[in-house]
């Protein structure tokens, strides 16, 4: 296991996309220390910001300290484990395709943006656009699972193409905006205009019934079997909070009728 300990807190963000099992596995400590990071617009070495101990040969990395100004951790990783003991900055797990990222604190904006596989688990809150697509991209998250134990910001799952986003507490506005497919589950309050422009995705509101756009049409009361499956699947990856709720009955609203209209918003049946 490789341990990276943050040496000092920053005001100017550090872009450290080299901190990923893909990059670090097989490198000696001295090689890791020489890897480049950007501190603002200055190119510096990893050793300027982190102390490095151990080996990443087992593809397991632990990052310690308040990394809320460290960006792009685990970006594009495809294997191994990255654990952050503390909070982390923007773009954590961006475009990752495999492996696991576990964050014990909060995460910034664009957590798991455009990821296509693997598991990103954040114990605290995340910023805006978790699992979303970057501006100009055709789609956002394409696979994998994002679990957020706290709140998530606006545009969570925007342009979602596939995959599962579970937010145990509340979600901001425009959740699943323009989503093509995939599933977003919100344990708490859902913000304004969920599913606006969505084509096929599912948004599951386990908290208070959200205010829906008029382009979503009531479509009966259902107990979807796939939600039970997701509930069981969540238990297997250690997420118990929403399991039983997903076994209940939901009111189904189909939409968004301004788009294809094959998406759904499920709200807990009274």
């Amino acid at each position, binding site marked *: 296991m490789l341990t990276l300990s943050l040496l000092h807190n920053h005001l100017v963000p550090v872009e450290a996309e080299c901190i990923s099992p893909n990059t670090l596995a097989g490198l000696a400590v001295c090689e890791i220390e020489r890897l480049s990071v950007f501190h603002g617009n200055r190119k510096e070495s990893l050793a300027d910001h982190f102390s490095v101990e151990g080996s990443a040969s087992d593809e397991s990395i632990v990052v310690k300290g308040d990394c809320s100004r460290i960006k792009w951790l685990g970006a594009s990783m495809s294997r191994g484990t990255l654990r952050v003991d503390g909070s982390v900055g923007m773009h954590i797990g961006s475009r990752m395709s495999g492996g696991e990222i576990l964050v014990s604190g909060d995460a910034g904006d664009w957590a798991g943006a455009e990821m296509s596989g693997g598991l990103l688990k954040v114990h605290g809150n995340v910023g805006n656009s978790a699992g979303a697509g970057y501006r100009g991209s055709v789609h956002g998250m394409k*696979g994998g699972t994002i679990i957020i134990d706290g709140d998530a910001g606006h545009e969570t799952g925007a342009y979602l193409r596939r*995959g599962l986003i579970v937010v145990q507490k509340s979600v901001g506005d425009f959740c699943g905006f323009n989503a093509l497919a995939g599933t977003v589950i919100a344990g708490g309050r859902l913000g304004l205009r969920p599913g606006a422009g969505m084509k096929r995705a599912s948004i599951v509101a386990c908290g208070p019934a959200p205010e829906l756009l008029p382009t979503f049409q009531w479509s009966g009361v259902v107990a*979807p*079997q796939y939600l039970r499956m997701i509930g*069981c699947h969540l238990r297997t990856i250690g997420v118990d909070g929403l399991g039983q709720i997903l076994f209940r009955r939901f009111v189904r609203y189909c939409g968004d009728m301004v788009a294809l209209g*094959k998406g759904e918003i499920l709200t807990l049946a009274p």
Partner: protein
Amino acid sequence: MTEMDPKAVIEDTFAEAFPLTVARVIVTADNSRLVQSAAIAATGFASSIIGCDVEAGIDCDLTAAATPDGRPGASLLFFSFSRPLLEKSLVNRIGQAILTCPTTACYNGLPVDPEKCLKIGSQLRFFGDGWQGSKKIGGSRFWRIPVMDGEFLVEEQFGTVKGVGGGNLILLCRDAAGGLDAAEACAAAMRDVPGVILPFPHGIVRSGSKVGSRYKALKASTNEAYCPTLRALVPTQMPVDSVVAYEIVADGIDLVSVEEATRRGIAALLGHQSVIRITAGNYGGKLGPFHLYLRTIAGLTRD
């Protein structure tokens, strides 16, 4: 033939088994009554490859904790000669017997190798007539097909393995009622082995067959050597004091499970007063590569 027990003799012979392609289907529903109905219907008319598209049976019941969606379920095993045949049969059987049953869902029960898998949900989805949708959960794709009580959920791909078909025991008994009791006890013991099914009704065969017939159109015909009413007319395998013979056929997910079923079956028969002799069906080693020697499996020395 060696005397082993005052009640029964285990013949020094072998059951001849052969490789078959196997799929395991997990069916779930809102209650176990619906599970049983769907399971029985899906595995119906599937006793022998000789005349059916597959050999199939209920492997075991599953508790809600053991199924993918947390509802009661059952594990079904389907055996066929090839993956294309198995795929066609499963699409038909799931489509007609499970999809049609209220509240059911259908999941794959074996690891999926993309090159050896069966495309089941991806064919059944067309029943949705364009209204079907899919979800990818934990690396597998599931099709949601709208039906009159909500949705039918079916996994897209089903894994297969090479299993073993044709494991068998033949028991020769001195009285009809006792023989049936012994056959039932034997079937129950063999059925208890995980990964083993007994494809015939009640697990017992009363019409054991031989390969071929005097009629060219038939692939198999009655095994006259074990027909008590023909003893005066044909070379018989039935001892003078026997009045009935039954065969127990077992298919398993691997050779080890069929051997274990055979061992348990023999053990169950040895305790029965009415069983005179225990033997097995084989074709001189020409049919299949798996030879299950009864005495070896029972832990006895061979002659």
